[in-house]
């Protein structure tokens, strides 16, 4: 029960962990230092400079030197954080960041379910061997998948915490979201944008397979969908 008080991020299962988690820890250290410095200074000053009989406050209006120092240090620190973060942003969300060999799938969000369209054996979306399954996202490990995300009604948001990926699904828009899982297993997908009464139960299961298991699953799933 102790780890939910931790400042560590939970374990992740995609390449984005490597892109994003270090940014978090960097900011945690920077803001942690700032936090302790300021709060400790505050407490120390409150104790040291509390009113004493016969005491007199120092009549001073400020210090231009101090202003210049703390303004420039803060500005430099935040700009550095921005510059360090920009590449990850471009990689994950940028149009050019999507790997060219990524497997295409379609994800259509609606109240209150996720419908995933798979490309079938030919690996291409928009062909007759595509099939759609509700509530289950299956992907192969160590390969990139790119989803064309849309919504059929309200705005939803595709959120897989373990993959560190989130993207709003907007009706009328088709938005690319890609990821590359690194660990076989089962993960959860939740909706991260209030979308109505069933927003809280708009859950899906994400299964990351080995390549062989994934191929087997595709064949079997396409078959059962065809049987319906």
């Amino acid at each position: 029960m102790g780890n939910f008080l931790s400042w560590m991020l939970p374990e992740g299962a995609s390449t984005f962990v490597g892109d994003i988690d270090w940014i978090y820890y960097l900011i945690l250290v920077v803001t942690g230092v700032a936090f302790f410095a300021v709060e400790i200074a505050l407490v120390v000053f409150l104790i040291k400079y509390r009113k004493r009989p016969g005491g007199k406050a120092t009549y001073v209006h400020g210090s231009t030197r101090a202003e210049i120092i703390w303004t420039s240090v803060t500005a430099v620190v935040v700009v550095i954080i921005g510059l360090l973060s920009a590449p990850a942003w471009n990689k994950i969300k940028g149009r050019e960041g999507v790997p060219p060999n990524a497997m295409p799938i379609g994800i259509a969000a609606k109240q209150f379910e996720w419908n995933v369209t798979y490309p079938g054996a030919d690996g291409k979306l928009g062909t007759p061997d595509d099939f759609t399954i509700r509530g289950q996202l299956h992907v192969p490990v160590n390969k990139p998948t790119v989803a064309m995300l849309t919504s059929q009604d309200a705005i939803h948001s595709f959120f897989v915490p373990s993959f560190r990926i989130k993207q709003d699904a907007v009706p009328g828009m088709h938005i690319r979201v890609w990821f590359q899982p690194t660990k076989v297993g089962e993960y959860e997908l939740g909706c991260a944008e209030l979308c109505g009464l069933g927003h809280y139960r708009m859950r899906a299961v994400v299964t990351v397979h080995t390549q062989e298991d994934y191929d087997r699953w595709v064949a079997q799933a396409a078959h059962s969908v065809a049987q319906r």
Partner: protein
Amino acid sequence: MATTATGTSPFTYDHGHAHVDDRSFIRKYIFSTDHKIIGIQFLIMSLTFLLLGGTLAMVMRWQLGFPGKPLPGGTLLPDTYTSGGVVLPEFYNSAVTMHGTFMVFFAIMPLLVGVFGNYLIPLKIGAPDMAFPRINMASFWTAVPAGFLMLAGFFVEGGSAAAGWTSYAPLSARSDLTGVHLGQIFWCVSLIVLGLSSIMGSFNYITTVINLRAPGMNWFRLPLSIWSLFVTACLVLLAIPVLSGAAILLLFDQTIGTKFFEPTAGGQPLLWQHLFWFFGHPEVYILILPAMGMASDIIANGARKPIFGYTSMVLAIIAIGFLGWGVWGHHMFQSGMNPTLGTTFMISTLLIAVPSAIKTFNWLGTIWKGQITFHVPMLHALAFVSMFVIGGLSGVFMAASPFDIYIHDTYFIVAHLHYVLFGGSLFAIFAAVTYWYPKMFGRMMNPTIGKVHFWLTLVFYNCTFFPMHQLGLHGHMRRIYDPTQYAFLKDLQPVNTFISISAFCLFATQFLFAANFIMSWFRGEKAPNNPWLDNGLEWTLPSPPPHGNFATVPTVYRGPYEYSSPHSDEDYIPQNVPTPGGGYGSPHPQHAGD
């Protein structure tokens, strides 16, 4: 001076305006044009909505802490809200929405701008009242029906608005998606009406500060509370009309079938977000700047020292006002907008941390080498600084857009916004209410109850909101009725329960403040003119001041932060007391270490 359309100068220094008000009770206290009465009217209205907003939060916390368990008193509610006493998702989403709506629009904003803008501006600049007293009255009486309309949502079919206080389209535009029709319409109309109230107030405040300052009250002798209220009024003037426009578009989509946000007809859901957040980001600076300004006044007073870096503090307020217009896209990083915009908004958002940091360092500089008195307002003002630092630092995490991918729409954001709005604004409001209560009502609030309320609030507040950072880091989404649906959230339930119990204690503690407020009105110790030994012009007047404020127009000789000045035997010297040896004080404060 340019030719005016009146023959007389607008600045008549021959007499003050204070006089006995012998009009009827209705003209004096109900339809009053006196800025002090209007400020108190806003105070009563806002504190009522603060209580209502808090109650709705208790409903949310009950469901989150004890999901599926009957709410105490739940069986008394209609079966559209609870089933067997258990909160229904309909009521939960409604509570989420109305908690935010009440708190932002009907509690914090009117408390800071409507109450203290009204009460402090004329007094602190040496004016008899606002530039337009009747428009001031109209501003309050326009806010009241807006409030009633917002409340009315709970009593119509379908219940209140339930699409979040941010009301994203198309969810908010289509009653088939929310199950709510009239409630969403009322939400839009109420905000349009409230917007008129705010705009009226804003141009009144701006004109008053520009034109009605007493002789000698030049811009760099204004207290920071007034600077911040002035810049805030500029933000209100320019941002609220954009919200009004957006709300009108949404209202038309809801009622007359326009297609602004309807994708099948070419409408753009993201248009709502751009319009809303173009308003919404300046709005959050509206919700913090007056708090910062008043905290500055109180901290200088409590430390018995001039504000450290007054000019920097003014420039920081102005910088926040300007930069605040260029960051709205950080609310939309994950919205599907062009990713390049994400990078530009990340940079502008990180930069806006700088003026807030400057202010924090200057507050520390103010108490450094002071003679700190821990009166109740000072306690709250110091907590404001301490908690605001946490809120501001947590903002850095979400400013970094790649990490925002993970924490957007999680409880990390909820933690951040409550640290700045409660830890920041609300603590500053507690400070300000306690500080100016004697001037408003002629009585002191009880300091013992004040201190107990302060410490309990500080502890329960941190127990409630700090763990929300951890929830967010574990991926706990916002606005979800039942987190136990997710395996990755089930293990976090003890945290939710702990937060809920802390929240109940926090809410209960506020009744101490309410009791202190009400009891002191009738039985509080009678207040002297200047209980805090403050330099501001309002403290030279009786508590409460007469109608028309100043019997003779004050002349201002120096800034408001000349505590422990060598020019005075006391450790304070009011702004309108001439400097021994003549002269008008230096126009620019001395700097140490130049």
